[in-house]
């Protein structure tokens, strides 16, 4: 069964790279350019995992994460927050809002893929 991964990021180039990477790994890839679009995609496609950028227009990553965790039927969806903001406060904020993992940009492709696989395997 192909796993579905939603990439929510407003940085076009990062989306392109992640899309290429995850497709190579055999995932089905969904893309959202802002917070609202991300929530809509989650509702429509119910992905297995969301790669969530923090700094996005309309709704930022924290809000999206919070909203997702407020819905019981979305509990099972894994959330990895991706952010260029790497301060301790920001990391712990993401984790306390219900993210499974907080990854700071720039990241290693191989490591990210390994983390995605590990999270999905534990589900």
């Amino acid at each position, binding site marked *: 069964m192909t796993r579905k991964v939603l990439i929510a990021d407003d940085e076009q180039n*990062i989306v392109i*790279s992640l899309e290429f990477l995850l497709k190579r790994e055999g995932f089905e890839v969904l893309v959202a350019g802002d917070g609202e679009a991300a929530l809509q995609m989650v509702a429509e496609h119910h992905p297995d995992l969301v790669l969530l950028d923090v700094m996005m227009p*309309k709704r930022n990553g924290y809000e999206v994460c919070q909203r997702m965790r407020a819905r019981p039927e979305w509990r099972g969806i894994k959330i990895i927050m991706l952010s*260029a*903001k790497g301060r301790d406060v920001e990391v712990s904020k993401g984790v306390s809002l219900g993210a499974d993992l907080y990854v700071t940009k720039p990241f290693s*492709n191989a490591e990210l893929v390994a983390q995605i696989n590990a999270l999905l395997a534990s589900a």
Partner: protein
Amino acid sequence: MLAINVFVLPIAFGGRLHFPDGLVDADTFVLTLPMAEKQEGLALLVFIGGLSAATGMVIVETIALSTMVCNDLVMPVLLRMRRLRLNERADLTGLLLGIRRGSILLILLLGFLYFRLAGEAYALVSIGLISFAAVAQFAPAALGGIFWKDGTRRGALAGLIAGFAVWFYTLLLPALARSGWLPLGLLEQGPFGIALLKPLELFGLSGLDQITHAMLWSMLANLGAYVVVSLLDSPSAEEHRQASLFVDVFRRSGDAPGARFWRGTASATDLHNLLTRFLGAEAADDAFRGYAQRKGVRWPEQPLLADAEFVHHVETQLAGAIGAASARIMVASAVKEEALKLEEVRKILDEASQVVMYSHRLEQKSRELEAASAELRAANERLKELDRMKDDFVSTVSHELRTPLTSIRAFAEILLANPDVESTQRQQFVGIIVKETERLTRLINQVLDLAKLESGSAEWHVTRIDVRELVSDALSGMSQVFTEKGIEVVAHLPERVAPVSADLDRVIQVLLNLLSNAVKFCDPAQGRIEVTLVDSGDWVRVDVRDNGPGIDAGDQKIIFEKFRQAGDTLTGKPQGTGLGLPISRQIVEHLGGRLWVESRPGAGACFSFTLPALRRSDLTPAGTKESAA
């Protein structure tokens, strides 16, 4: 003294009764009464008694006076004259005797002179009163010296001189006039006929007897001069020390006499030699033995400590023989007194006023401290704020740097791990890497540029520039971009505008920033940019108007902050670093102008900046002015 006067009374009454017309001098009643009653024997007895009493008095007084003159006037002066080397002479008794004999002769001569000059005009009592009035002149300085710390040497001298002058004028001068040595007209009309200056009715004051009149004016002059000059004068350190010694004498009663104020070194042998020279060896030994006994020291077997108290003792002994002033000088020559340093004197003196001064200073210091701590608190707040801002800035900058870096790293890793990527895709990925690298470079440059502008270390090449030329150059430079994006550009440029004084490259930087913002945000389908140049007299203004979505009022402030873009209102994140407008504003404000935006959502945005226009007076360089003059 008073008792003796009891015997005078009957004689005085008898004289008054016997010679009611006052033809007989009251001083001679004691002689004239027996003579009038034909009691020659009694008269003779009285005469002999009177003569011997008078002679005795003259002898006693003259000796007393000559001792005073010798001890307190002549000896101190002589001892002070180093050239005479009196300090080194072993025996001074001969000199002392000579001086005293000389003064006896002089005093007798002076007495005779006064008798010849003025004596006949006055009774004995008047002469005494005149002398008392003279002596009374010493009172202000003497009492002031004891009770008034601010009294100075010059003040005392001025008082004495003024007092004696008035005394001389109001008492002695009339005496001389009455004795026929000066014209009587001086008394009756005043000197040069000025009635106000009549010696007996000075400044028109009449109705008082002569002595009271003289005392009143002389004391007034004396006290007035003493107080006024003392207040105007500032006492020297030495005077301060002495004043304190005298005035505070009761306060220091607990100390050994002088111990606290005397610092010096002396040897007991020197002091002994000194006493021997003036008192003789025996008396000197006695004085030493007496002091040693009091101290419980067995002198001469045990040495005596020549401390301040002992020196004081020797001085007292010596004063008995040669007077206080001379004794002081002699002891001072035997004792090496260490001059008190001004600082030490200050320490010792005037403790009360020092405490007052000190507490005053303390008060001031605490006020200063309070102000300083308030300033510090404010500065601390400001620092905290700056620190927070710096922290935010660093965090934002690192975020902005990480974003392009993320793409670069991701694509680089993809290309590394997947050598089989199709060539078109490979081209696309490498292209992204290059673009993101450019973005990174631009960002770093702008951050550094802004830092330079903010710290004031940016270099400025200010010249006279023509803004019209600058605007048209910038527009033609960007014409290709406009064409590519299908944007219509309208320029309203007047024929001429006033020149401005500015850095050409920096102004171009501002204009290009505003134009590229306009390109970025103007209507994507039918873009239109309007550039207007206005010369409003004092200012040259440039407006750049786009037909984009506009900026709502809340964001109009934010867009000038670093890394802040009005992105939330847009679907996509705007391109750019978020530093363009803050940098532009810094530049314009540095050049003395203003940069602002006017916009309504949905109606486009108009960014304007002004630069101060150069007026005709600013235009003329100093050199041409001079050559024209």
